[in-house]
């Protein structure tokens, strides 16, 4: 049973261009992912593919000009706005990207304490800090005094003290040195091993492969493939979607071949398969309609040619 299930999610933004014309930008379209307890799901995609918005959509903190359709279920029950209000910060927690997500004028210890739910917040915060090797003096510091690694661990601490069952980590690794990255990732692994679920949103496929159980590949606002980490071996024969294959081949330790072209902007999406314009396997059929997500060899793929 999935603890968190996103089905057919679409997110669009209203904006105004010259001449006050209202346009709808669809940034996420018909997206489906599921998160199991005890598992790390890595959502991998290039920047601008709508990964962060997925996190914000699940937590219901999208800006007011965003509209959302589809369904998000937590423990088999629809996550309505009212239900979200009671779960946010208690069962669902976000680990944001950078130190900018900490209040610049509040001591970090107090900020972590505000995330605690019931019980003795101070001792909970001290315990978590100790666990993440944050010295006693850190709780009295302001965010600007933290190093990148300390800030990361502080952000992680907010999720830890909340006792959440599901953690959504948004790009937790960029700008960190390899040692800190390794440490941060192992923290997530530990968290999942304790029976919680982690959604790790990242563009760093290499780090994702190290600790995740499943990989969801994101392209232009939707998932193109959901595969087990085990499929990412050798020349990538077990991988289903041409985009995932291309990503795998582009890694330096593999063939180091870049993919030509770039991801389409939400305002000019192709009518058929979103990847077709850059795909080697594309046929006229691909441009007819966007392929549905289908099951294939214990994974999911959004491609009519995949075998």
């Amino acid at each position, binding site marked *: 049973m999935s603890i968190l299930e996103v089905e057919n999610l679409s997110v669009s933004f209203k904006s105004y261009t010259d001449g006050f014309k209202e346009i709808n930008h669809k940034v996420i379209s018909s997206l489906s992912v599921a998160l199991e307890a005890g598992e790390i799901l890595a959502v991998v995609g290039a920047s601008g593919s709508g990964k962060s918005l997925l996190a914000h959509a699940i937590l219901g903190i999208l800006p007011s000009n965003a509209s959302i359709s589809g369904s998000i279920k937590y423990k088999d029950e629809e996550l309505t706005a009212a239900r979200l209000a009671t779960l946010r*910060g208690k069962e669902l927690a976000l680990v944001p990207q950078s130190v900018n997500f900490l*209040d610049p004028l509040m001591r970090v210890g107090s900020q972590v304490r*505000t995330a605690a739910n019931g019980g003795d917040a101070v001792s909970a915060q001290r315990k978590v800090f100790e666990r993440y090797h944050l010295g006693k003096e850190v709780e009295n510091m302001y965010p600007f005094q933290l190093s990148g690694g300390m800030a990361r661990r502080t952000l992680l601490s907010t999720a830890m003290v909340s006792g959440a069952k599901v953690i959504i980590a948004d790009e937790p690794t960029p700008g960190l040195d390899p040692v800190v990255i390794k440490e941060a990732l192992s923290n997530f692994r530990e968290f999942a091993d304790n029976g919680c679920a982690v959604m790790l949103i990242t563009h760093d496929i290499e780090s994702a492969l190290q600790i995740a159980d499943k990989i969801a590949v994101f392209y232009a606002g939707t998932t193109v493939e959901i595969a087990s980490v085990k499929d990412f071996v050798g020349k990538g024969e077990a991988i289903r979607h041409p985009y995932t294959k291309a990503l795998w081949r582009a890694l330096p330790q593999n063939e180091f071949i870049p993919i030509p072209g770039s991801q389409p902007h939400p305002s000019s999406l192709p009518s058929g398969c979103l990847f077709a314009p850059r795909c080697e396997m594309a046929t006229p059929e691909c441009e007819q309609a966007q392929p549905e997500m289908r099951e294939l060899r214990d994974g999911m793929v959004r491609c009519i040619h995949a075998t």
Partner: protein
Amino acid sequence: MKSVRMVTLLVAICLISFLLVKNSPIDPIQAYIGADMLKVGPEQREKIAEYWGLDEPVIVQFFNWGSAVLAGDLGTSMIYRQPVIEVIGERFFNSLALMLSAWLLSGVVGFVMGVVAAMKKGTWIDRIIKWYCFTLASTPTFWMGLLVLMVFAVWLGWFPIGMGVPAGVLAEDVTLMDRIQHLILPVLTLSILGVANVALHTRQKLIDVMASDYVLFARARGEKGFVLFWRHGLRNVALPAITLQFAAFSELFGGAVLAEQVFSYPGLGQATVEAGLRGDVPLLLGLVIFSTIFVFVGNLLADLSYRVLDPRTREVRK
């Protein structure tokens, strides 16, 4: 560093205002003698000019005046026949009560208005506050003063029509209550106008804060409404508001000049207008120096408040 800036600023201000006064059509001798001017012959005039050193070059006159000021002697006011320093001291006390009350009142009310408008952005209450602020930001002080005077003093008769104390009462019989009663209308005038600035700035700043990443994260942790504002909004928006309010000392002083004039309130502002109109050069120059210091201190406090209150500058110095 700051004190060097203060000294250079004062010297520059003194020189400029001295030259301006010197080149203005004010004749110090005529201003001193007043209506008796007809009884004074040209020879006597020259004698007075010589006695006062008016026949010396301008720059020498400036140094004469400047060295006297440095020695603590601002001269004698011609209209009040009192040392300038005493006039300013007494007037300043009256003005201080007026400006301080208006400053506090407009700061607190303006801040609350800005916060309410930002938290209820786009609703009718936000629109009303914005409309009020924009309208008042373009309202002249003297006009508002007259309006307040008409409504509350003339039509309703709730407050005295002007001045600092009741007329025809001996100085020792004036109660604190009397003084407060005379203070209310000028304070009201200054406050009604003073809120606009703080309110609009606070509103915009709080809107920015509420759109920030850390507020987004706080929402993701389940915070909302008043708790969200209290934990993250208030501290981030109070800092610029306090700074702004200190920096508004100059506007406060400017506003007080006009309001005191309308209400015939015996403060510094009224003294400034009197000194200017009746050619009381020593008093005018004394007031210029004093108001410069006053505004400078306001800006200095704004600067210092930031250093003390903002942990980003405070903790670094430790």
